């Protein structure tokens, strides 16, 4: 169950409010900071920032904003072509003037695409540009990258247990490490602190995310009664993809596979996501609904492969696991898992590789 916990959150990122929801509502006397009626969509941001750099090609901060919008588009659509656009735009920005924001985007793209060594480099550079106050956002990316590289002890050194937990990013990093250690109750506790901090900052999307993650931890700990209130709190805060995933997991774990499938399909009807297809496949299979299961399997596989076809490696793990879950080609799953472990060596990657090796060995037996 836990292996599905992470990747779908990418979809949530695309649905996150942007820009931040923090800050006061401007009054009629405001000189600026006047919010528009609605949060702009990714497409609106791309059109706006692209238009601005077309008019003013040396606006390097706007090139970086355009890169960020392209990156969000890549996450939203699972189309890596947008990543190429993001790379081009951020390179354009940095060619005029290197900035913290450009470095931050480079770090995020690298981590998203599982280029964790690069992510560490970029995050270090961005962190050095910020210096003080401590850049806990980049520190969180470093933790993410180190966990991705399987260097959990190094991650622990960045955010040691007992660290002051008054910062969202620090607490989220502690939760990430606890989760990787399979200390689910501890991870849930951290996520709840993160939710409280996000609430204080009036960051509703992050409240939803942290509550959903806490709920997911309780599902993993098989404490189903504890999970539900947090999933409900996440929904009350506006909901997110994690809330859907973990609610589905909870439903499935408590014998309500049909309800879980309905939930997944409702979300998929609005927003295609290979990881949701993947979990929907598994639930449909449990229900014995082979036609529906195959539909979701093929949808997930198509997206995972399309990413790899564009020379990206960030769906290798997921595709290997899909093949294993679907009793697909064990040798291909093993090859993918081996390829993946060169980049991504966290618990999820190791579990997939172990399973692929077992299955491939079994398949090779006469």
């Amino acid at each position: 169950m836990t292996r599905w916990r992470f990747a779908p959150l990418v979809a949530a990122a695309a649905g996150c409010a942007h820009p931040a929801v923090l800050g006061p509502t401007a009054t009629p006397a405001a000189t600026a900071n006047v919010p528009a009626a609605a949060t702009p969509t990714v497409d609106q941001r791309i059109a706006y920032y692209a238009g601005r750099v077309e008019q003013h090609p040396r606006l390097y901060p706007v090139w970086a904003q355009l890169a960020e919008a392209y990156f969000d588009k890549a996450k939203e659509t699972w189309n890596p072509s947008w990543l190429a656009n993001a790379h081009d735009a951020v390179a354009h920005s940095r060619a005029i003037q290197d900035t913290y924001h450009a470095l931050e985007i480079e770090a995020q793209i690298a981590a998203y695409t599982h280029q964790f060594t690069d992510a560490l480099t970029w995050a270090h550079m961005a962190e050095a540009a910020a210096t003080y106050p401590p850049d806990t956002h980049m520190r969180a990316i470093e933790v993410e990258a180190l966990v991705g590289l399987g260097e959990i002890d190094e991650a622990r050194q960045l955010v040691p247990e007992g660290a002051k937990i008054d910062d969202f990013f620090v607490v989220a990093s502690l939760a990430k490490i606890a989760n990787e250690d399979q200390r689910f109750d501890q991870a849930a506790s951290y996520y709840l602190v993160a939710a409280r901090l996000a609430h204080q900052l009036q960051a509703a999307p992050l409240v939803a995310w942290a509550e959903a993650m806490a709920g997911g931890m309780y599902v993993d700990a098989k404490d189903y009664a504890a999970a539900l209130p947090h999933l409900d709190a996440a929904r009350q805060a506006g909901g997110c993809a994690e809330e859907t995933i973990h609610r589905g997991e909870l439903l499935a774990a408590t014998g309500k596979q049909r309800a879980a499938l309905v939930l997944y399909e409702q979300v998929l009807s609005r927003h295609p996501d290979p990881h949701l297809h993947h979990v929907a496949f598994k639930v449909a299979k449990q229900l014995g609904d082979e036609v529906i299961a195959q539909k979701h399997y093929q949808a997930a596989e198509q997206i995972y492969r399309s990413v790899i076809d564009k020379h990206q490696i960030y769906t290798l793990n997921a595709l290997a696991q899909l093949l294993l879950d679907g009793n697909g080609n064990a040798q291909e799953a093993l090859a993918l898992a081996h390829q993946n472990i060169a980049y991504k060596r966290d618990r999820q990657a190791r579990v997939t590789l172990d399973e692929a090796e077992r299955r491939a060995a079994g398949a090779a037996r006469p």
Partner: protein
Amino acid sequence: MFLLGVLGCTGLATGAFASDHGDTPELISVGRHDARLTDLHAWTVTGAGGGTDLVIAVSTNPNVPSSTTIYQWPEDLTVRVHLDHHSQVSFDYPDTNSVYGGRIIDPAHIADDIKLEISFMNNQPQLVAEGISDTTKSHIQLFAGLRDDPFINHLRDHRNVASIVLQMPLAEVIGSSSTILLWATTKVPDIRGPISEHVGRSLRSQHLDENALNTLRPRAHYTELGLVPDVMIFDTSRPAAFPNGRLLTDDVIVLVADDPLKNDPIAGGAPRVNDKPFLGSFPYLAEPWAP
């Protein structure tokens, strides 16, 4: 991946330290660190002709990478220095003197009698002045470029910022009173409308609980928020010394009577000196650090 996916779009403002280094979450969330104001200093010097000159230094962008040798000013950034020379200020209240530098008698009528707007074209500063004559404008010295961060707390040692320094004859910008009110703002366009940033007296508008100060004119700080307007009070008949104006050598974290950082074990403590010597002449700010 999950963490990045979520954190990558939050734009959460992190802790706020230094004079004005950590504010305006809206700017941080859209990556416009170039529009973040870090410091406002104002003091007087003896001008070239022997008269008294007013010097105003505005610093921006706390996140300049150390590799930067020449600062490129974005063409959509507007920096404004505002000067009110009509508001009356009382110095009869020791409590407000120590915190704000005085008490403004009629805060509802604070307004900028003079506005100095700096924008950039081909990385050259363009000055547009309102409320002064062309002659006065021609007397203004203007510097814009990379400098050592003048915030003297050691937390910002060996860091550069993008600074603007203006020097002008005091007599040409002052009203009937010797006291002026000063504040600075930045503005950049964005998809949901322009985003602004404000600095007046140090260590106010950067705190999240006073973030609304960044969106309003100083008089509205009082009329709409019920707060003391965030302006710098400077009685130019007296030597500048925070909170009467602000010298480059004023360690505001130590000097601000009400600042929560005063007792912070990292930021607080004894007054410090800058990590690089300030210059004795225009533009006064220390040379930038080399990469």
